[in-house]
């Protein structure tokens, strides 16, 4: 069975138009808009305050670890919601399944905790 792609044609048109717009509008503003550059205008903009250095800096690796942990537990929470909604229907089986799932993540949490990944100061 081949899914006919014809119903998706309007979607393709919208995508094409969106792409064209995204390319055209910056072009138009740079070409049509008046330009009166000054030293202050062409300096990097940093929320109104004086710029304090280049943006390319070395980040501490702990940001990365925290971001990763956030994703993991965020996804866990995403899975918990539909489970909680269907808790009655899923019964004991679903309950045990979710306990196993949570236990796996808790093992990971204990591991990173003891490893010191959550210790921001050190």
């Amino acid at each position: 069975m081949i899914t006919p792609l014809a119903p998706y044609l309007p979607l393709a048109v919208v995508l094409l138009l969106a792409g064209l717009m995204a390319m055209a509008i910056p072009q138009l503003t740079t070409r049509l808009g008046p330009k009166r550059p000054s030293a202050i205008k062409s300096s990097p903009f940093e929320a109104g305050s004086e710029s304090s250095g280049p943006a390319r800096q070395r980040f501490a690796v702990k940001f990365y670890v925290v971001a990763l942990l956030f994703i993991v537990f965020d996804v866990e929470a995403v899975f918990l919601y539909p489970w909680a909604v269907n808790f009655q229907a899923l019964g004991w089986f679903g309950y045990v399944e979710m306990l196993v799932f949570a236990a796996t993540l808790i093992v990971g949490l204990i591991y990173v905790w003891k490893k010191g990944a959550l210790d921001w100061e050190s």
Partner: protein
Amino acid sequence: MTLPNITLADFLPLLPALIMVVGASILLLSEVFLSSSASRGYQAVLTVATAVASGLTALGLMFEPPHAVFLGYGVLDPFSSFLTLVVCVGLALAALASVSFLRKRGAERGEFYALMLFASAGMSLLAMSAEFITLFVNLEVLSVATYALTAYLRRGTRPSEAGFKYFILGAFSSAVLLYGTALLYGATGTTKLADMAGPLSQALATAPALVYTGAILVAAGFAFKVAAVPFHMWTPDVYEGAPTPVTALMSAGVKAAAFAAMVRVFLTVGKGMDPHMPLALFSTLALLTMVVGNLLAIPQRNVKRMLAYSSIAHAGYLLLGVAALFVTAPGEHFRILGASALTGGTPLDVARSDALRGILYYLLAYTFSAVGAFALVSALERREDEDKGTAWDLERFSGLAQRRPGWAFAMTAFMLSLGGIPPTIGFMSKLLIFQSAIDVGLVGLTIVAVLSSAAGVYYYLRVVVYMFMRPVPEGAQTLERSWGTEVALVISTVAVVLLGIIPGRVSEWLAHAGTLFGQ
């Protein structure tokens, strides 16, 4: 709301993988709670115990009747159980070889063994996957763990180079596989292998390009993982740069699991396709892989790199077995390479079932021989030579027969087995594959296989020549013994020799394992 009908019986086949995951979790927790650096020998012991427990469970499951589990997303059949057994053997031997390897580098960590276990769990599950999404997830479970293991010794330049290359090309090959999957899904409207065959034969009539492109992309994705030519470029660099026990696990486990998944996908889905297509595809891959792998291995003086190319060549022989699975009628195959009639009078289905057994036995044989060889390579290498690349030079093997006769004997057994010389397991397994290929009529391709295998003997025996006929080099460092390596070498040597002479119980299991669910 209706619930899918999943019972506890569905979880039984997961037991081998579950044991490995529990073992890995224990290792992770013990790593952080018992962090005294003095006593880390238990980690390898625990890993080996987990592998043995898991392997025995798989052995028990082998005698379950083949059936689908989890609503057809997975299957349990003797084929998958035998493969889990092969993976467990590779895991146990690689873990034993890791003991002294990691201790010499002060890198004993529970995470190393935990990653090995996670990767092996992925391999075991990959062999059972019967649906494309499940298959992809399991492929990633095993891949991500092996990427991390490759770059485990992150201080050196080679491991990070190897890890990076493996990661980039691995991610690329996964993407190729996924793209092929998407095309096949588009053609059939399902991702379950068993449901695909029917719609596929209809789609073949209306949109053959879609089906063929999808199938070729899926095959290319797997060809990357099993290191088949022309998708082999990453193999020597990654195998050389990865820590040697990890290379052992990669060459044995990853390859075995990827082969199992490839065979299952193409045998199940291929029923809906013109059988010429997979036959032509795998014959071409087999031809290229056998010839190129062996030719490129000949000039290698670096033994680890030589074993990497040899692993490519062995993928070629395995692909010959895979090609034999797709001959559907005598005289109906790839004209250039096949003969036109069935020989020997063996019925086709028997020959094909033999080919399936041949592939499994070959994977077991390769696991024992290659993991043993890598264990010996890791015992000989010195930490300080690694960045110079001389750590694995042939010279390191000079005069080994005088210094360590036992090791030299073991290495000789492994080399003979890899070269396919009796009385080793490597000979028996090659015989099985070549025999079944001839039985289905792939005579031309088998002749190429035999010739290239004869060329391979040159570079295998060169190692033996260095061990027995060269003097011990001046100022050779003392060779340290380690219980882990010794045990690994003894087990592999005994298996390589004994299974070549009296396959015994293993051949009974094998006779059983030739059944694939739904075939």
